[in-house]
């Protein structure tokens, strides 16, 4: 019949659709099964298969782990890298990527030597997988993207995931024999390997590499791009002078966190989501039939004036939002497929009664807020000669950068 897909663009309607179990994220096999790194990974599963995998992976993101990240890993992964590398002319996307990839690799279970070379290589592996994962939205040669994706997965397996997997297998063997004093790592690869041994989940090595690789991508690519999106505002690329806000971001983590949430709302990494109807249902008052597609316009939903006021289009980190709305809109999704790493990236907003005390050991600011503060603290400026370039290889170019040249002062580092 060729009827047009139902498009939802109001916050409440999109949220309802995201909760509807009759709508699947797994759209079609051409996009998700053939040469796509998403094939069989958590984000595309549906129903009981998704539930089982998610139950296995959710414990990696418990509050206790996030607190450890905030207070032990972030200072090493973010502040130390900023102190070492934020000098002179460089690409903000790569700098932010090298920060984010440290944590993403730890969570995924990818061992590395900590060198800038390996961190950058891992970040670019993640970027290549991102291109492959959004194959449906690519506007360049599809076969080339598929070939690059296969090469990236092979390199990831040979250089990182394979050795990491073998090390964990040996640790699990030793733990089972009671001959190891080394605790098992708290990461995706380890829990997946243990589940595979116990007969819980059927995951072959290739699927494990894809699952781990997509974690690397999800934890580094989106954080790095969101950092660039935030600095598009903070450095005034939209024509508004925000130098005061930039200074505040360098001194206040709470300000940096509010900037992150508002950036995510105004510039969602995935502006449009699609869902396949797997069983006849009613979505936002409209009947839809199995096989049809429902389009969720996150970009519009995030600017719904019913929830974000008459100035919903404006970038305003100090905004208050209506009851029931998230500060970041629907940019982390909602429902069963809500972003598993949302609290790592964005932390948790202050709850009612919680004090704005930056010495608090319990508040979670999130990885991106700490990246923004570190970058702002080191005096980031616009590059006077070069302008940022969007990633025009994808229809999601409104939120994705290919290069984001910036300049840091050299005086602090030169004698």
């Amino acid at each position, binding site marked *: 019949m060729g009827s047009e897909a139902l498009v939802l663009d109001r916050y409440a309607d999109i949220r309802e659709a995201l*909760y509807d179990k009759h709508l699947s994220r797994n759209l079609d096999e051409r996009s998700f099964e053939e040469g796509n790194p998403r094939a069989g990974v958590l984000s595309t599963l549906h129903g009981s298969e998704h539930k089982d995998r*998610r*139950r296995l992976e*959710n414990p990696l993101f*418990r*509050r206790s782990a996030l607190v450890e990240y905030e207070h032990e890993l972030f200072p090493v992964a973010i502040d130390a890298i900023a102190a070492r590398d934020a000098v002179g002319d460089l690409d903000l996307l790569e700098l932010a990527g090298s920060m984010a990839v440290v944590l993403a690799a730890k969570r995924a279970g990818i061992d590395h030597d900590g060198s800038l070379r390996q961190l950058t290589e891992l970040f670019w592996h993640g970027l290549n997988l991102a291109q492959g994962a959004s194959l449906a939205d690519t506007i360049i040669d599809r076969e080339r993207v598929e070939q690059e994706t296969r090469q990236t997965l092979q390199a990831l397996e040979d250089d990182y995931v394979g050795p990491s997997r073998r090390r964990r297998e040996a640790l699990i063997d030793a733990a089972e024999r009671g001959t190891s004093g080394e605790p098992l790592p708290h990461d995706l690869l380890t829990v997946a390997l243990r589940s595979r041994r116990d007969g819980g989940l059927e995951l072959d090595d290739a699927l494990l590499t894809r699952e781990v690789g997509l974690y690397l991508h999800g934890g580094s690519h989106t954080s790095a791009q969101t950092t660039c999106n935030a600095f598009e505002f903070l450095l005034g690329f939209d024509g508004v002078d925000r130098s005061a806000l930039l200074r505040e971001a360098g001194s206040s983590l709470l300000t940096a966190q509010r900037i992150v949430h508002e950036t995510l709302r105004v510039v969602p990494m995935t502006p449009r989501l699609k869902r396949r109807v797997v069983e006849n249902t009613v979505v936002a008052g409209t009947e839809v039939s199995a096989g049809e597609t429902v389009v969720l316009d996150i970009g519009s939903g995030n600017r719904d004036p019913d929830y974000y006021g008459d100035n919903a289009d404006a970038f305003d980190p100090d905004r208050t939002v209506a009851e*029931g709305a998230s500060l970041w809109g629907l940019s982390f999704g909602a*429902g069963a497929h809500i972003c598993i790493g949302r609290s790592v990236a964005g932390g948790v907003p202050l709850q009612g009664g919680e004090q704005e005390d930056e010495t608090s050991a319990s508040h979670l600011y999130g990885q991106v807020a700490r990246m923004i503060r570190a970058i702002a603290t080191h005096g980031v400026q616009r590059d006077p000669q070069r302008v940022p370039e969007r990633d025009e290889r994808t229809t999601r170019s409104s939120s994705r950068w290919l290069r984001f040249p910036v300049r840091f002062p050299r005086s602090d580092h030169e004698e």
Partner: protein
Amino acid sequence: MPRVTIDDDLCVGTGECVRLAPDAFQLDDDDEVASVAPGVARTPTEQLRRAAYECPTGAISVDEDTSA
């Protein structure tokens, strides 16, 4: 006090409920599925409703108490 239930079949163990209402909800020994905790009785109804609203899979129900 409202009646609070969790649908085990829907819960995927995100732990949002435990974060939002730590006295009212708990995760099982395997850290995979949430259940109602003894502290639910002293948790404000508004907090319970927030946890139910934020549950990503809609597994939590908070029903008005109809008992006398």
